[in-house]
């Protein structure tokens, strides 16, 4: 089965979104079925592109544009593979006809346990004389203590055209956590970034028969807020009315600096977030903020309790895994083979309320019950979502919602345009952190090596008046920053009128969640 024009292209801006994306695409490949008796329920062609690699072999790579600083690629080569062997100096001299060549070697990151095993396995397979080597990869590799970059988490190869880096020549002396969206604008406009970006995106688009839409994951508190906003402009220009789901992601900051530095950072974080929300609600179909923190902006450092997960929120590697699981669930409806007619815009339609693009995402992951002998309303009552949107508990009034349930037969539930059920579990990739208590693992084997874990899951994308708690908080915090008095590094970047305009637009968004608007 081909994608039949249901392709979704994913764009990831910044370190955290790339972590989420790495887990997300790992989950996809974990879900591939090579057993014709157990076909996957999800049409993988939606997210993946079939092609040939440079060496001529079959390749199946994410329809993805990953944007990050060049120096953050870490173990990932621009070929899309982790750790490649560079050609020898003599070969290079030969090719380039250069007489003298000075080699400048950047430090090589150590290989983690997973990559070591992959390497062992592939060299064992290549050696025909070796005895049948029964070396299999382990079920789980928890990389929490060693992981430095999202590239180390990837279990899937990327297409070289997915890797769209901000070149080092544009990032000298850049302090990302304190950067502003204006810096993002400047980088976006610079041809040494922009030419690559446009080329790579249209390369992905050209391979799509009828693209149904985009997932845009972005850090919203720093320069990426500016880049993703420009990107949204571009997408609307090039792709008209296609669906866009924007996921602004809040960073995990380590507060080790002095009070003044924290205040400066907070100030630019808030302004960037304001610009991100105001532009993305204008240009996207849905905006679902993600954070594992239950409160932001200096109000608290508590992480959301996901009940059925045991995780460390302060670890980007672990928090991003939770977000990826959530994204996997909420993006299930428009990828199901069983429902070929469902597209992203059906989900948008289910959730649409005038003026309200901002929605809350919640999950019950893993879903704890093995059997469901109650109806859907009872299910939603018994299993309250755990929210990924700060300040918004997703508990009381969910005005509209789109529900995904994985791991149970759809025949058990009445059909509804807002309920998407699939019998396939979510398979847990090997480099997913060890945060799932084993009692929820539904794979029927306890082998240490080999099998992947499997869990069921529930998610909801909710358009709710509760979102007002989030937007009101943002308005309140933005008001607290006296625009006239803000530290010079921010005021240098922004003109007063644009700040005022942004404030008004955030207030307007907030007002659309008033109860009176709904009555």
């Amino acid at each position, binding site marked *: 089965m081909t994608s039949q*024009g249901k392709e979704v292209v994913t764009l990831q801006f910044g370190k955290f979104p790339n972590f989420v994306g790495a887990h997300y695409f790992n989950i996809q490949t974990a879900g591939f079925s090579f057993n014709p008796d157990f076909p996957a329920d999800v049409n993988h062609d939606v997210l993946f592109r079939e092609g040939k690699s440079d060496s001529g072999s079959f390749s199946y790579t994410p329809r993805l544009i990953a944007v990050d600083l060049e120096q953050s690629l870490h173990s990932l080569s621009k070929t899309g593979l982790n750790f490649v*062997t*560079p050609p020898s100096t003599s070969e290079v001299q030969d090719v*380039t006809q*250069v007489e003298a060549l000075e080699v400048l070697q950047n430090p090589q990151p150590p290989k983690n346990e997973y990559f070591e095993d992959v390497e062992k396995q592939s060299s064992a397979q290549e050696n025909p004389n070796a005895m049948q080597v029964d070396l299999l990869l382990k079920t789980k590799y928890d990389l929490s203590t060693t992981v430095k970059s999202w590239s180390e988490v990837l279990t899937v190869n990327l297409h070289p055209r997915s890797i769209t880096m901000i070149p080092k020549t544009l990032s000298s002396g850049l302090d990302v956590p304190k950067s502003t969206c204006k810096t993002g604008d400047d980088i976006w406009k610079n041809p040494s970034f922009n030419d690559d970006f446009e080329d790579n995106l249209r*390369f992905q688009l050209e391979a799509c028969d009828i693209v149904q839409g985009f997932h845009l994951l972005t850090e919203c508190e720093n320069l990426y807020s500016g880049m993703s906003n420009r990107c949204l402009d571009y997408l609307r220009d*090039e792709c008209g*009315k296609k669906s866009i789901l924007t996921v602004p992601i809040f960073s995990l900051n380590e507060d080790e600096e002095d009070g003044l530095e924290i205040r400066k950072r907070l100030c630019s974080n808030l302004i960037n977030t304001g610009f991100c929300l105001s532009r993305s609600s204008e240009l996207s179909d849905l905006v679902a903020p993600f954070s594992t923190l239950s409160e932001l902006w200096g109000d608290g450092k508590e992480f959301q309790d996901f009940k059925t997960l045991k995780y460390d929120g302060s670890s980007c590697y672990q928090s991003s895994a939770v977000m990826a699981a959530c994204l996997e669930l909420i993006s299930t409806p428009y990828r199901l083979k069983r429902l070929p007619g469902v597209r992203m815009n059906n989900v948008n*339609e289910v959730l649409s309320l005038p003026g309200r693009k901002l929605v809350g995402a919640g999950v019950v992951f893993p879903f704890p019950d093995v059997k469901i002998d109650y109806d859907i309303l009872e299910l939603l009552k018994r299993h309250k979502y755990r929210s990924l949107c700060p300040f918004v508990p997703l508990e009381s009034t969910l005005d509209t919602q789109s529900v995904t349930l994985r791991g149970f037969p759809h025949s058990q539930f009445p059909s509804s345009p807002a309920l998407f059920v699939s019998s396939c579990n979510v398979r847990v990739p090997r480099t997913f952190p060890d945060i799932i208590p084993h009692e929820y693992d539904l794979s029927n084997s306890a082998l240490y090596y080999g099998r992947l874990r499997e869990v069921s899951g529930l998610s909801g994308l909710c358009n709710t008046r509760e979102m007002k708690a989030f937007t009101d908080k943002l308005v309140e915090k933005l008001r607290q920053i006296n625009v006239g008095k803000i530290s010079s590094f921010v005021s240098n970047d922004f003109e007063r009128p644009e700040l005022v305009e942004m404030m008004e637009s955030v207030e307007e968004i907030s007002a659309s969640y008033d109860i009176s608007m709904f009555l």
Partner: protein
Amino acid sequence: MAAIGLLNSKAEYVRTAQALALNISAAKGLQDVMKSNLGPKGTMKMLVSGSGDIRITKDGNILLHDMQIQHPTASLIARACTAMDDMTGDGTTTMVLLIAELLKQSDSYISEGVHPRAITEGFKIARQSCLEKLEQLKLPLTASREHLIPIAKTSLRTKLAPKLADHLTEICVDAVLSIYNPAQSGNELDLHMIEIMAMQHKMECESKLINGLVLDHGSRHPSMPKKVKNAYILTCNVSLEYEKSEVNSGFFYNTAEQRDKMVKSERDFIEQRVNKIIELKKKVCNGTDKGFVVINQKGIDPISLDMLAKEGIMALRRAKRRNMERLALACGGAAVNSFDDMTEDVLGYAGSVYEHVLGENKFTFVVDCAKPQSVTILINGPAQYAIKQIQDAIRDGLRSVKNAITDGGVLPGAGATELALYHHLLQYLESPDSATQMGVKGRFRVGVKAFADALLIIPKVLAINGGHDPQESITQLETESKLSGTSLIGFDINTGRPVNTVDMEIMDNYCVKRQCLSSSVIIASNLLLVDEVMRAGLSSLKQ
């Protein structure tokens, strides 16, 4: 802190002196690492990333940033380099060397008790005087092949092996000349109208200039023609991709029949568009030997492709934005945003359009155009790193040609200009009319002298990289320029002997030298007047 400073100005002085020392040592450090990159004999670097990617380069800006600088002074210089590169595309190594040398020269005066302010004032005077002199040194040129070859050659030879550089020199010059319209000013010359396309394969390694366009994609339909002769070209930016026009939540629960009906009505809209193309094709092609090619910036879905294929039309989807403009310049016609009221006037024409498959990649050549004003440089290379190196060099080469046309002239390279400026400044210091500018008791003189001495770093480093003795080479150069009475005498990197730069075709861009002098003075002065360092935005570099 500030209060202490007021009471005890000595404390403040120590703090400043320390910061100054730091700045100077940082700049010296950069000079040491960047030295080896200057000129055609600078050593090529192979940068190996942690993941094993390699990049072959000699570009000052790239190398500087690859060092992942943390030091604020160094990162200020690095950002200035990027700004320099964005503005002119060249001269970044020279600039770093010059900034560092200005600081070094000042250092000795400052330790003798001269106030930094006196030096920076001297710098300003020297810069002004040099910029005037540069104007005189400029060798005028016309936008002709023989005038432009030297500048392109000098640029490319600093980045590539000589044989390769010489081959690309002609390509770069010819490419710029084909898009150059003498009626317009050089500023309007849009280098984007030269497409740079790369093909990676082991067989062929020679890069070429294609008089037309090469697109990096092909048609997506198995039965579309792969080759079209005498082709009308329709360039458009109109979606031929089915989109659900109205959202209907009950959509997927209807019967198959109902669903088909709905899909059909939504499709009709797109089909009408496709039919308009087919109509036009029939109108212009029927009964002739002409073919028809559609190149669309937006998508074309499989059903639309199918309809077009049935009519023998070749269609490409999701073409680069820029190719809309390029196609119009290469083939004539005009890109359309709607098919309503479309006439054959919008069509372009190419003698031949064909697809070329290379592994996973497809390329479409649009060639044999009457008088293309947009062309393609096709790089053939055996490996990505080689392609990248050539691509960078071509970009620099094209910029240098464009700069030369815009400037209406070039400057002698190989140290000749620097030497001429050096002599100019020494004479200026002697001349009576300079005395009035040199401040009370001529206290700015040291700055001018420091500036003049600093300029010599360029010929010196060029000599060192060529394996010659810097002092001896400079002495020879001086003698020879005096004898010849011109300021065209530079320095032959191979022999270490003085040569005439015009004869040897070693030319540098006027705007690059100019920008380099200006920016170096601004940055060096900022670093000398420590307190003002970080406050100076880079915007002040733009003239």
